[in-house]
């Protein structure tokens, strides 16, 4: 795709641009700024006290490590899944491929109750893990499982197109030059996939950070142990502590924006490497 900086000669720019900006402002920008403005009205000391209270900090830690774990699992197995879906054939492959998008299409609450029932002590999977001493439901591990579900499509779908684009000729050339299968994978096939893998990981991670619906059922929600940050926000709202809720929300927003910047940076870097085509 190239934008050759042409003059805009097609009609409708004014109308569509205007409507777009209006919509964005009303629906997105103004409401989001409300959070920051409200926070600006809170005395700094109180702000710091709220966002660094032990319970809140525990939730940051929990959210962070469960999201990292989930994104990590999705990185490894999502890569494997993409590889298998692109390069191998097996019965039912097309069905499995379509199913990968299920986490995008299935409501988070439905996923939440389904996962809880599966991993609870007498659930379909939980009953096998209980005797081994592995508790999933109502523990942080359950949160990680839910976040893995949520982030599953990201790595698979970012890696798939890149894998599909990799011409067989590269492998053939490498084989003619004497490389064995392992060398072909490590030196010829894997390096071009790294940007897509990192992007997929970052997207899965970002998605996991703010997740609420699928987690809140399986989590147990015990403060300091298995309480995620979005839940604290809701709790504060129910107690009419708008200031407190907003303060924590702002911390989450800032983290999300930084992550968004990082992802954009990653995609820009990946696109630059693509220029070397």
């Amino acid at each position, binding site marked *: 795709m190239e934008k050759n900086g042409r003059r805009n000669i097609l009609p409708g720019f004014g109308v569509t641009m205007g409507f777009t900006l209006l919509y964005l402002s009303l629906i997105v920008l103004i409401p989001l700024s409300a959070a920051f403005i409200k926070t600006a009205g809170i005395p700094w000391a109180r702000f710091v006290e709220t966002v660094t209270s032990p319970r809140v900090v525990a939730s940051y830690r929990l959210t962070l490590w469960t999201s990292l774990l989930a994104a990590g699992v999705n990185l490894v197995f999502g890569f494997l899944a993409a590889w298998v879906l692109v390069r191998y054939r097996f019965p039912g492959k097309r069905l499995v491929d379509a199913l990968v998008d299920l986490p995008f299409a299935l409501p988070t609450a439905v996923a939440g109750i389904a996962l809880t029932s599966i991993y609870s002590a007498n659930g379909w999977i939980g009953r096998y893990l209980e005797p081994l001493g592995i508790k999933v439901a109502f523990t942080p591990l359950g949160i990680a499982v839910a976040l893995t579900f949520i982030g599953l499509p990201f790595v698979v779908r970012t890696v798939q197109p890149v894998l599909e684009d990799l*011409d067989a*000729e*590269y492998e*053939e*050339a*490498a*084989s*003619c*030059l*004497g*490389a*064995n299968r392992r*060398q072909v994978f490590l*030196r*010829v096939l894997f*390096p*071009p996939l790294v940007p897509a893998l990192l992007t997929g990981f970052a997207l899965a991670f970002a998605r996991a950070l703010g997740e609420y619906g699928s987690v809140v059922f399986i989590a147990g929600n015990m403060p300091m142990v298995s309480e995620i940050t979005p839940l604290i926000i809701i709790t504060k709202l129910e107690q009419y502590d708008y200031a407190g809720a907003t303060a924590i929300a702002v911390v989450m927003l800032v983290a999300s924006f930084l992550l968004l910047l990082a992802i954009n940076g990653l995609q820009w870097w990946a696109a630059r*490497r693509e*220029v*070397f*085509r």
Partner: protein
Amino acid sequence: MSIEIRGVTRKFGDFAALSNVSLTVPRGELVALLGPSGSGKTTLLRIIAGLETCDAGSVHFNGEEATDRDVRDRGVGFVFQHYALFRHMTVFDNVAFGLSVRPRRNRPGKAAIRDRVRELLRLVQLESVGDRYPAQLSGGQRQRIALARALAVEPEVLLLDEPFGALDARVRKELRGWLRRLHDEMRITSVFVTHDQEEALEVADRVVVMNEGRIEQVGSPDEVYERPANPFVYNFLGHVNIFHGRVHAGRGTIGSLVVDLPDHAAANDAHAVAYVRPHDIEVTREQIDSGATRAVVRHLHTAGPVVRLELERQDGGGVVEAELSREKYSELHLELGEHVFITPRNLRVFLEDYAI
């Protein structure tokens, strides 16, 4: 290393890409596999490389059976039409790749690899681009690097799959000559695939003309051009004019032309087709002998190294293409619509059963 292919057949479903093909490539020769798309030439090349298997037949290197050998163990260098340079590696790393993947005991040291890569880059006249990435090179440069990469592992056979197909005309011509010179210097047994007959005739020691999975003719460029074995080869290599006539007992009557055809002494009033190259059509203002036919000049293409004429035969035989040198053309001083006489020389006559 010499290559021998015996009775190779390859089918893709119902489609027969190769049917019982046999060929010998002596050591050090530069052979062109020439033919239209679907003729099987690329499949044959890939079978030699080990990138494809054959359903029947065998491949031999230096007399030894190599049909089941893995592609890595064949000692072939392969150059792809679209270069297949590793985009994420520098030019240097690309060229060094074959050496760097050798098992430890065979692997040269870093300094040795560096020297070899430099030597190869010098060979392909691209010493300065070692640190660049393939995307920063032009098409012609990329192909030369691809060649350097293939040569780095000192292959005994060099295989090239339409190596210049993705390049524009001028670069193609340059690289053709360059490949020829390189081969003269290195004398590696080489096989290249092309659908461009000009390229095959210009570069190769021998040309293998293929069509629909079969070899039509094998010979030097002169042989296949001057003495084509059948109408397909004739048609494929250069322009052709077709005249219809009859042949009986070694004598052919083609229009008003009567020729002796000792090759067809056994013919019995058979319908024949005569092929004549445009540059073998003699154009005169006067009727020089009984074989000359009247024609009218319909088109003149004067731009270019030769002048091309389209002449309409007055005996209803259709349009004839003729080529004249610029001198001849200025001698005759022809204009559109003028009446001339055409005499076909150097006919190649095929009997009815050779229909294309």
